[in-house]
């Protein structure tokens, strides 16, 4: 099957949203990386020109992805997954260390980050596993297997070290929930997060008191009816308090100081605008100084002065905020929301479970990146270094997300084909 076949119909809205984000992204990378010294546009040492090359090559990549048979991805998902895992492992002996992390392969002047590609591979493997006729995700056994598929790449990535990228793998719970996993897992995750943050915020003593209070109120209100007894309430409360204490212990004894600082800044327990909080503070200033319509393209004073570190990569959104203002930033947020929602809508209409699970995985991964990145740049979340999809500078990142997205576009195209 080729893409010239009149029976194949790609979702042009998704492609349009993708193209808009990449285009707007490049415009902002241009501004963020523009220096007064470079006068020639065609300059291979300039970041914006490199990114333009990556974008050009990604078009070739897209044509290649769309040209392959959609069945290819399902059949070879396991192989792709295994190759990806091997590439993640081999980065330890063979990879190059860039700013403290061994996450890159270096070919000549080009660096490839395998973890960016592993997301698509994992999504394929998970989709393949869940859509297998013998898998029932409601059973604990299969849940465990699915968890292993997801956790393996994450576990390999963490010691690179790249905890941010590893965190992204939690996105798959959304896909699993969609396919029938019990809500309790999400709830549990939510409670764990709430206890974690709560403990750090108000301290272990207050948190324990609150847990006891809530448990007590719930127990008293439920007393008339039949239900779990005092013992079980007590046990859960005890577990919560134990968790709270362990969080306290881990935070103070296992975490490194830089991790603790990042949390403390977001929780407002520390205000250090020069040291560890510098990134967030400068990013907020850049965005905040944009006003309604921004300072204009390449006119951002914060951007020009390089006040925001990593502005062309993880903090690219601060350039949007400064130079295009509230309206520009809102447009970008809107485009992301639209893209993710569009993918969800498409996923829901897939007839094959494989495509649907894959679609959900794509949406979830994009969402986590979007949420964590913009949350960080606007100062709502602690500093977790992950890129903004299609926006941030970096060939691996751009290609990883392009592959991730366009495999789904290809699968969705096949959906039409069969109708």
């Amino acid at each position, binding site marked *: 099957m080729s893409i010239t076949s009149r029976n194949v119909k790609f979702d042009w809205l998704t492609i349009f949203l993708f193209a808009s984000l990449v285009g707007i992204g490049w415009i902002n990378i241009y501004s963020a990386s523009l220096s007064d010294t470079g006068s020639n546009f065609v300059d291979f040492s300039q970041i914006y020109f490199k990114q333009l090359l990556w974008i050009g090559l990604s078009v070739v990549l897209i044509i290649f992805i769309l040209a392959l048979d959609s069945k290819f991805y399902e059949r070879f998902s396991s192989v792709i997954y295994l190759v990806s895992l091997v590439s993640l492992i081999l980065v330890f002996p063979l990879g190059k260390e860039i700013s403290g992390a061994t996450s890159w392969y270096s070919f000549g002047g080009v660096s490839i980050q395998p973890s960016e590609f592993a997301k698509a591979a994992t999504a394929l493997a998970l989709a393949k596993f869940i859509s297998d006729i013998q898998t029932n995700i409601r059973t604990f056994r299969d849940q465990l297997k699915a968890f292993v598929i997801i956790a393996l790449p994450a576990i390999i990535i963490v010691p690179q070290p790249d905890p941010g990228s590893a965190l992204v793998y939690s996105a798959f719970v959304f896909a699993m929930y969609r396919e029938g996993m019990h809500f309790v897992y999400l709830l549990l995750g939510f409670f764990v997060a709430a206890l974690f943050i709560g403990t750090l915020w108000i301290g272990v003593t207050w948190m324990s008191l609150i847990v006891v209070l809530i448990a007590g109120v719930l127990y008293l209100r439920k007393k008339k009816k039949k239900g779990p007894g005092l013992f079980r309430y007590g046990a859960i409360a005890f577990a919560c308090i134990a968790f709270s204490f362990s969080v306290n212990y881990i935070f103070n004894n296992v975490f490194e100081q830089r991790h603790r600082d990042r949390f403390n800044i977001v929780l407002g327990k520390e205000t250090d605008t020069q040291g560890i909080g510098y990134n967030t503070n400068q990013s*907020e*200033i850049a*965005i905040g100084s944009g006003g309604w319509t921004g300072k204009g393209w390449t006119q951002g*004073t914060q951007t020009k002065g390089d006040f925001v570190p990593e502005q062309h990569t993880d903090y690219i959104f601060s350039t949007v905020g400064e130079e295009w203002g*509230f309206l520009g930033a809102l447009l970008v947020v809107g485009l992301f*929301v639209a893209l993710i929602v569009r993918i*969800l809508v498409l996923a829901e209409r897939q007839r094959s479970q494989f495509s649907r699970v894959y679609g959900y995985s794509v949406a979830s991964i994009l969402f986590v990146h979007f949420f964590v990145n913009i949350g960080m740049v606007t*100062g709502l979340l602690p500093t977790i270094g992950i890129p903004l999809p299609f926006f941030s500078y970096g060939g691996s990142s751009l290609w990883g997300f392009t592959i991730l997205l366009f495999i789904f576009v290809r699968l969705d195209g096949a959906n039409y084909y069969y109708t």
Partner: protein
Amino acid sequence: MRKLLLLSVVLISGLVFMGRLFYLQIYDTSFQVLSENNAVKVEYDYPQRGYIFDRNGTLLVSNQPSYDVMVIPKDVKPLDTLEFCNLLKITPEVLKEKLKKARTYSPRLPSVVIPQLTKTEYASLSEKMYKYEGFYIQKRSLRDYQVNHSANVLGYISEVNERIIKKNPYYQMGEIIGTGGVEKQYEEVLRGVKGVKYIQKDRFNREIGTYKNNRFDTLPVRGNDIMLTINAQLQEYGETLMRNKRGGIVALEPATGEILALVAGPNYDPALLVGRERSKNFTKLYYDTIAKPLFDRVLQGEYPPGSPFKALTALIGLQEGVIDLEERISCYGGYNYGGAKKLGCHSHRSPLSMIGGIANSCNSYFATVYRRTIDKYPTPQEGIDNWKSHLSSFGLGQYMGYDLPTGRPGKIPSSKTYNAIYQYPTYRWYTPATISNAIGQGEVLMTPMQMVNFTAAIANRGWYFKPHIIKNIVGADTIPKQYTQKITTTIDPEHFGPVIDGMFDVYNYGTASHLKVKGIEICGKTGTAENYTKIDGVRTQLTDHSVFIAFAPRNNPRIAIAVFIENGYWGSRWAGRIATLMIEKYLHGEITRKDLETFILNGSLQEEYSKPYSGQPFRINQ
């Protein structure tokens, strides 16, 4: 339900980000300021302040470079403190203290260590500065006074304070502004407009280029030079005559209203308020609450004018038609108005008509004229208000609108004044209660500037220009319009003749007859004004003020002058002598009456001024 979870999470996140962006970008505007503070540096280019010249083109004020030793604390490396302190002529403790202060202000921004080095200090220091990292010398422009007089006219410049910055956003901390005299009055002319340059900085505070392609940058506009109406020679001469005396001399050119000299005593060298000793000197001048050298007695001193006021009483009487030129009025050693005491007079021929009355300064004559003027109207209230309206047309009892930033309105009483004093209508009051006004005592108060102004109006026979000190703004070649508009008094021109004749007779054979200058016909009027002060809460009379007004020559007057010497006693003793010396100096260029000049130059009233502070009982009018 399962379909909706991620969808709703995505949508909610979108809304949360929207809210956050709204908060950062729209609601909280502090980020704009923060951004400008850390990314854009503003550099000012200060133009040279305009020069000040006198009416003949003599340079009075120019500029001089001054050198400040600056420090950026974080760049300071260990240094030979002792040697450095020797160079700066300070002790190591002072240096330590200054560095500590600078560091507290900002480790990265420059602070002043030693302000305003002299040229010689700068020369010896500049070649050794390379040894002291973190220190450098910054050039500034200061005023350079070419003359040691006219401090009250020229004013001075000082650093702006927060109040000024709040009122006028043109100024930034550390900039200078004219604070007195013409420096203040013509601040915007002299100052020019500073140029602004915006520079984009990077995160290390390095300059990385222009901001928005210089779109907001402006070039400095040089300040304009100004030419004053002051005659520097006359001004200087006036200040020498005023040595050891308090009061003022003010001279106008009647035909134009131009101020030829404006001398306040005591005065000070304007150079005192420039340079390293500035604040010390200023404090000294500011806290001299007895001699008050910063108090411009010509513009701010409100005094009873005394007898010169009789010229006005005569003019108003003539205008109101209550007195005939030929009518002779008897004087019985004073004017009896029905009180327990009469308004006293000195001994002179009697009875006298108008011209003789002025020449002999007869109190009775003018009390009579004044009383008739008021009593012409049905009630004393109407009479007083009519009298006041005549005086107002001479610029009395109000701010005059001259172009110097200080002044007082003086006082001309109205019916309201007396109604308040006598609690009208519970109690009534009549003209005799105000009779002292006739001879320039009582409730009448004037500044010497107002005295000279009415003198000029008399010299012009009924009109005057607002007194002003600006002769020309170089470059603009104009002066403010209000100084080229003739103001006419309510007195008809024909009434001035007899008053001028009277004033000429004052000089001819009257109270100032011993002040004759060869070849000059002066019309003048002496005044000896009673005054009081409070010593320990007790109202005590002091020696009379010596007052003299004059203009000359009699025909086509070229100078009008008012001299006021505090506690100088007879008008002709101090004020008259000084006035005629000034006139002679101005019209002839040199003084023939050397003895008289020596008397004034060596004469001192310091003993008189110290009397009220001596704590001993003292005698007055000796």
